[in-house]
């Protein structure tokens, strides 16, 4: 056996990958050749030193848990693992969409109502019927709107009735009463209960932050009341209470 032909076999010999007859021949050669025997001794040392590469890098317990969780009981758990966050995310998006759409509709409705208030204030004739007397104002609306409402007694309160006018909201006729409170004017808008003002309209007290107006809206019997004013919320609230009392 020649050293040159042996060299290529040394690795396979070391790895136990030689056929038995090849291994016998090689052992024979190694016994007589110092060059090849020192060569294979060095190769064996190197191979041994490489065992240190085993277990050189150790995974963290946390990472092991993570993978274990991922692969254990594939069907059910992976379904739960994935479906829970997806379900929550979906529900959140849906809720946000509903709230957003509802909010959008409400904001749009309130912007229109605020416009009615502003229009009245900027109009050359603030009211079509000028009277501080509720017994004059209420009959004025008869035959003009398809419903009737009650007005409270304003004497002895902070409020003074200025008068009333007809308004339209979403093609529906309604009554707009102007009530003054000190320097502030409050619009009392009254519509039929069928008027759609958005999904959250039944909420009793809403202060619209988007505009500088306070708005309070409620429904009593077949009527929808909306108060719009730049007065402070308490002022609007108290007037709302007076109106509610006589329209229950």
């Amino acid at each position, binding site marked *: 056996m020649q050293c040159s032909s042996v060299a290529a076999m040394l*690795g*396979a010999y070391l790895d136990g*990958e030689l056929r038995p007859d090849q291994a016998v021949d090689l052992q024979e050669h190694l016994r007589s050749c110092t060059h090849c025997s020192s060569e294979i001794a060095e190769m064996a040392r190197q191979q041994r030193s490489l*065992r240190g590469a*085993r277990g050189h890098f150790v995974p963290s317990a946390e*990472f092991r848990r993570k993978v274990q969780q991922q*692969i254990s009981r594939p069907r059910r758990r992976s379904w739960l693992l994935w479906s829970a966050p997806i379900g929550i995310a979906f529900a959140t998006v849906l809720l946000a969409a509903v709230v957003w759409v509802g909010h959008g509709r409400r904001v749009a409705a309130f912007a229109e109502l605020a416009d009615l208030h502003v229009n009245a204030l900027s109009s050359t004739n603030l009211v079509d019927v000028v009277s501080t007397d509720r017994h004059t104002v209420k009959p004025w609306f008869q035959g003009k709107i398809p419903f009737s409402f009650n007005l409270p007694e304003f004497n002895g309160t902070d409020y003074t009735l200025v008068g009333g006018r007809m308004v339209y909201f979403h093609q529906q006729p309604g009554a707009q009463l102007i009530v003054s409170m000190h320097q502030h004017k409050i619009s009392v808008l009254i519509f039929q209960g069928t008027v759609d003002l958005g999904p959250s309209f039944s909420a009793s007290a809403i202060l619209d932050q988007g505009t500088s107006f306070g708005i309070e809206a409620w429904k009593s019997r077949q009527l929808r009341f909306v108060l719009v004013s730049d007065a402070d919320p308490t002022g609007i609230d108290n007037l709302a209470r007076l109106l509610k009392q006589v329209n229950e």
Partner: protein
Amino acid sequence: MDPEFFEMLAMPLFDQLFNLAHWLTGDRADAEDLVQETYAKALKGFRSFEEGTNLRAWMFRILRNTFLTSRTGLKVQNTVLIEDETDGVDLAAHNITPESLLLQLEDSQSVMNALAELPVPYREMILLSDMEELSYKEIAEVLAVPIGTVMSRLSRGRKMLREALRAGAPRRSTHAM
């Protein structure tokens, strides 16, 4: 095989797979990504795994293929692989004493450093053979190459490693002094 058994059979290989992944990627976070993907793929394909065949080699193969398609792996593939078949480099240049090489081999840190520096095609050969002690046949399966290629590439890798240690030996000793 039934995926029910996957966890039971595959988790004992976890440490080995992570170690191998770290040696291939050279980075802990990359190794974690690689191992995680390997387990996910193996679980998915577990029905195609035949009972009685070598699960370790099968998992190694998935890991190695996943590595090759990873960011680091693609970079490796782009590097030129020196011709496998020629066993050209003659390492007869024994201008270094066997003793100093012996010292280097006993310094396991320098062996680990030299291994980490080897080009991936040779590094993975040494990892699978000398570290994991896979047979040539198993390595051929993992890497999807003929056994002849395993033998020549492994032999070349071992020589390159020895060369690197030899080159490192005198320099280290002069630094030490």
